[in-house]
């Protein structure tokens, strides 16, 4: 690891100031940042340990939703009684990720900001436009098994690897942000992560000096909630494809279908047209195929990850057929 200065801001104002003015990087759980610092993918000169600025609570909101503090751990979130009762898709998504030891340290803010697992990105001897702009993309003509099939660019085909944010996208949660000049703003999770475009180094909409303070969940949405993660082994692996679904049925027809997908793109993928295609329809194989056609109309594989196109379709079937039974 390269040498760095270490500090512990005590307030959010102090934290945003050291990040904005002194170029410090925030460290929360450290499970992603320290991993990348050991590989010299990240080489901050200063670390601001934000674990003592507050924002570790999980609290009811006035609207009847739930506010998940950015510094609350993934474990504290997944085991919270209201998350288990009212937002099971979120509890399931978190529990499907990493391991208990990692979730015990990982925070909600850090989880949203975790970097891609593209192995060209994490190997400093390889070209990568995300890590080293202009150096090229090793993955496009290389080993691209984990990579994206939707929303890719000539510059970068990496995926956002997390699980939690996929459930948050289906739930239409929002991200509360403290800005460097002492203000607050809120961004829907669905708009928090970016597509790579010509700026693959930019993974989310945070501006310099901004720190996430919380994630806000809407009032309970009910329905049948499912998180299905397809991976190479049945535990402790990143998703190849994942689906978060909140489904309701009436008289054998879909009345609600909020869907988000992981492993397909540089962000949790939410295309409202996919759910809309299901509304008012029975849960037949044909209906689900039509929804999958819409989801995958612009999908493009890069050789090794071609399998993700049929896999995403099958995962959608696997989620919606039993969900329809559960919600019937």
């Amino acid at each position, binding site marked *: 690891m390269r040498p760095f200065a*270490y500090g512990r801001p005590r307030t959010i104002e102090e934290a945003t100031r050291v990040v904005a003015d002194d170029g410090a990087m925030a460290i929360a759980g450290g499970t992603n940042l320290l991993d990348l610092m050991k590989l010299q993918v990240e080489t901050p000169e200063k670390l601001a340990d934000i674990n003592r600025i507050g924002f570790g609570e999980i609290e009811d909101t006035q609207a009847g939703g739930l506010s998940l503090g950015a510094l609350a751990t993934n474990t504290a979130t997944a085991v919270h009684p209201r998350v*288990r009762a009212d937002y099971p898709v979120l509890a399931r998504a978190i529990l499907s990720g990493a391991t208990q*030891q990692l979730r*015990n340290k990982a925070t909600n803010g850090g989880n949203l900001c975790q970097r891609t697992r593209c192995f060209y990105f994490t190997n400093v001897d390889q070209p990568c436009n995300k890590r080293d702009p202009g150096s090229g993309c090793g993955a496009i003509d290389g080993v691209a098994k984990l990579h994206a099939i939707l929303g890719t660019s000539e510059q970068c085909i990496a995926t956002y690897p997390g699980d939690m944010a996929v459930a948050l996208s289906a739930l239409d949660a929002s991200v509360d942000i403290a800005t460097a000049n002492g203000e607050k703003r809120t961004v829907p999770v669905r708009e928090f992560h970016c597509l790579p475009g010509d700026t693959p180094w930019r993974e989310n909409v945070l501006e310099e000096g901004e720190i996430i303070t919380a994630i806000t969940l809407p009032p309970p949405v009910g329905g049948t909630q499912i998180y299905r993660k397809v991976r190479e082994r049945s*535990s402790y692996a990143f998703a190849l494809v994942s689906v978060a679904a909140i489904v309701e049925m009436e008289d054998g027809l879909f009345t609600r279908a909020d869907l988000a997908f992981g492993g397909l793109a540089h962000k949790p993928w939410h295309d409202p047209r996919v759910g809309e295609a299901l509304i008012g329809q029975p849960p037949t194989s044909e209906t689900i195929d039509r929804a999958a056609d819409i989801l995958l109309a612009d999908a493009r594989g890069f050789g090794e990850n071609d399998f993700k196109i049929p896999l995403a379709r099958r995962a959608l079937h696997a989620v919606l057929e039993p969900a329809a039974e559960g919600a019937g």
Partner: protein
Amino acid sequence: MSDIISVNGTPQRLPDDPRTSLLDFLRQHIGLTGTKKGCDHGQCGACTVIVNGIRINSCLTLAAMHDGDEVTTIEGLGTPDRPSDLQKAFLEHDGFQCGYCTPGQICSATAMLQEIANDWPSDASEDLEGPPQLTGEEIRERMSGNLCRCGAYANIVAAIREVAEKSA
């Protein structure tokens, strides 16, 4: 820096170089070599220790981030003369071959039993809200962060199961 960390009940001064991981601090600065380094990247669990009652990977955290915390390592769980229940069960069930992963397995399992007592669900729990069932599948999922190169898994699960059933 005058920061203090408590390790197995003994206060220790935190290192001056902020780059020191909690794992390197335990092994190299205060000589507690029971905690092992496998991958140094959060992937194997050999470095698992218990901090304020919670299990974490000591390789992916800085010692400096633990000012005021209480750390328990394998040395703090028991001694050859007075082993903990899990330490005894690992011996009785041959829950290891080379033994390299064992301190991490036992620290992890110790904290895991508390998590089950807290009714925390896992990815293997059918019901998110009820108390978890003590199935082999539950134990394997909850211990998935501890790899064993020797493949002693069957006996590790048996050892944990025995202690879990006794304490349940």
